[in-house]
């Protein structure tokens, strides 16, 4: 199976590889996996006070398509609002990277990782709000 040029580009020069401090209250972390193929994807977002994603990092253990999907996701996430990020669909990733049917699950994994990271950030924020509410 041949990878598309875009997949190869992200695979050879992955964007935003690395990690953010998962204990930072403004950082949301999502770790998801596909046990059939043994892939793991960790995606993190750092959200500013205005609800915009100021930074995004990923680490993926998996095939080229899984790496490219998460690399592309971090590119799209940076600078966008959390609400817009929550709307990102795996089909957009499939289209952008021209993923073949057997690799669609890689894009699903990336969507799941985005959602998990957002959920983690929202939970942290809710916990913080409850805390300040209880103190005042």
């Amino acid at each position, binding site marked *: 199976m041949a990878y598309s040029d875009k997949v190869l580009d992200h695979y050879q020069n992955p964007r935003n590889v690395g990690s953010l401090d998962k204990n930072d209250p403004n950082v949301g972390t999502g770790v998801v*996996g596909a046990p059939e193929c*043994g892939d793991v994807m960790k995606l993190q977002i750092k959200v500013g006070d205005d609800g915009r994603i100021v930074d995004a990092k990923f*680490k993926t253990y998996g095939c080229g398509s899984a790496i490219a999907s998460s690399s592309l996701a971090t590119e799209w996430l940076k600078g966008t609002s959390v609400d817009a990020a929550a709307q990102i669909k795996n089909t957009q990733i499939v289209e952008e990277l021209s993923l073949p049917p057997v690799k669609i699950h890689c894009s699903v994994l990336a969507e799941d990782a985005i959602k998990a990271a957002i959920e983690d950030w929202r939970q942290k924020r809710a916990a913080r709000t409850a805390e300040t509410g209880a103190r005042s």
Partner: protein
Amino acid sequence: MIHVPAPDPFTVFGLPRSLDVDERTLEARYLRLSRECHPDLHRASDTGDCIAVLQRSAEINDAWQVLRDPWRRARALLELLSPGVLDRTKKLDPAFLDEALELAEQVATAGAASAPALRARLQAALADDFAAVRADLQRGDHEAAARRLHASHYHRKALADLEAKS
């Protein structure tokens, strides 16, 4: 053509549904079954017979491949005892996945000096996984067994990657 679901491997071999299979019994049975159903020994009188013999022989070979591998045997047993359980348990604990990612990084950066210890650690993790699957099955906790089988994939993949490096 009518689709007839293949009998489960334990039935094909006439063995009890159990994770523990005596390897010598298994092999002896495989040889006997294969002999009994060898296409050369069956001068099939008509095409129908011929197809039946071929189908039976394919079933025996498929069942053999599953039963001789303890991990595949465990998967087959779980699916028999609790159909769909492997599909229902695919979502693994994020803390475990985080560890799996860390292991993968260690494998990627392992050199000749650190590889043996890492290999021993991964082999031990796989042995632990299998022991846990056995204990979960004995307890009748099929979901826990399925989750542990999924988790073992990460250890097996990391080990394979490590071996591929050397």
